[in-house]
């Protein structure tokens, strides 16, 4: 990450400029297939010989259990919730993402700070505080946004895993039942993601397309980044290994 920098008030005790790897974030609302695409991208990159580390929302050692407990009803206010996710993110940033970038890995992040921005904004109508909180985050080299419209999303979620309490934003009491609430909540999130897509220059990918086409587009965007940064792998490597 040549010239890597922090989103806002960064970590004063850690200079990001010597990070060699690349940080790629895949964003999008629930049910757009982020996780599946990240698995495929990891495979594709590893076959080419890149070191890859993946990191996912709420998956930190420190916080994953705590967040589960919080979701069971111990914490319901907007600030605690956003701060729990920020703590989870900070733990992963300092213990996974930064060490991996320092060693030259490509880091694929399943959701990034923009997810927290959208969720907090929907609950507060305030953009400033949550962005201040995440000031210590690294700005990614590439953000791919898997965009879907609400009607397609609703059908897809019902067909697959069904709607759950938090994905429906039931804490916000937006609708009379799970369906209405899900639709309203996810529409608000999509609206905010669309705004951020312009503000932060996301690469927008139409998530209504067949998975193979989405994967091709993701690969193209990543290939472009790696080529620009002089990291593209070339055929001779294979030839040398064949001779050896």
């Amino acid at each position, binding site marked *: 990450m040549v010239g890597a920098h922090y989103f806002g008030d960064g970590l004063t005790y850690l200079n990001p400029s010597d990070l060699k790897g690349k940080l790629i974030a895949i964003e999008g609302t629930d049910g757009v297939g982020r996780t599946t695409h990240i698995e495929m991208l990891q495979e594709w990159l590893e076959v080419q010989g890149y070191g890859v580390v993946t990191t996912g929302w709420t998956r930190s050692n420190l916080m994953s259990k705590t967040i589960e407990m919080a979701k069971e009803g111990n914490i319901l206010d907007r600030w605690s919730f956003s701060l729990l996710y920020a*703590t989870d993110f900070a733990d992963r940033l300092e213990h996974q993402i930064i060490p991996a970038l320092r060693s030259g890995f490509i880091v694929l992040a399943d959701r990034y700070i923009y997810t927290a921005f959208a969720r907090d904004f929907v609950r507060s109508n305030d953009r*400033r505080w949550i962005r201040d909180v995440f000031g210590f985050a690294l700005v990614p080299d590439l953000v791919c946004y898997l965009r879907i419209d609400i009607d397609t999303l609703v059908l897809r979620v019902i067909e697959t895993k069904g709607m759950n*309490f938090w994905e429906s934003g039931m804490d916000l009491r937006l609708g009379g039942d799970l369906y209405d609430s899900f639709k309203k909540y996810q529409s608000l999130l999509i609206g905010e993601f669309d705004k951020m897509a312009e503000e932060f220059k996301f690469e927008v990918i139409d998530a209504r397309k067949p998975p193979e086409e989405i994967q091709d587009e993701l690969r193209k965007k990543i290939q472009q980044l790696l080529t620009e940064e002089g990291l593209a792998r070339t055929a001779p490597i294979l030839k040398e290994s064949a001779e050896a």
Partner: protein
Amino acid sequence: MSDQTTPATSPHPYPGKLIIVEGIDGSGKSTQLLLLHKWLESKGHKVFFTEWNSSELVKDTTKRGKKNKSLTPTTFSLLHATDFASRLYHEILPPMKAGMLVLADRYMYTAFARDVVRGVSPEWVRKLYSFAIRPDMAFYFKVPIEVAISRLLGGTRGQFKYYEAGMDMNLSQDVTESFRIFQSRILAQYEKIVDEYGLITMDATKDIAAQQDIMRRLVDEALKDYKPRRGTHGRRSLFWRRFDVPKSE
């Protein structure tokens, strides 16, 4: 709709009163707050008490993080902010809105002093706590480092705890020396905070009773126009019940 319209630097809009104490370990702030609590109750006030880093959920996490020494200055700071937010929402705001008295042992100024010494940006940690309400009275118990050390070593605690002494910061192998360096830096931060937020400085080297007399006089003066409110005159009961929500996937 924005919560940012009431930053921690302007007065809160609630009928209750929030009184907080700050100071390093061994400054005697908790003793003074306890005595104030007794006095206010004896005068017939309904008083609620809340303490730094005490919400169950966050306390367990902090304990786990401390145990495997995986906490960084940033996660340490964020966990304390989470605890504070949760207590603000569940323990401080309901009685404040109902017009009651709330006493807090440590407030956001602890984070401004301690987290900055641990290495987070002073601007960042202030923005982090911008959702907090400004206390009606904030007492800072100022004590020279040597007095604090002799109180803690001579008192019931006997020895310093790992994080309280800043042992994670590799300041010194010797626990007492580490405590001295770490807490001295915190004292220096408090000095700035006192000016920045207009805390009331108390001479914490004085006798316990003498300090308490001053504190009660100041509180009495500040509560001059305060109309006490309480529902029952019996024992305190649970006034705020947390909801159960369905478990998510």
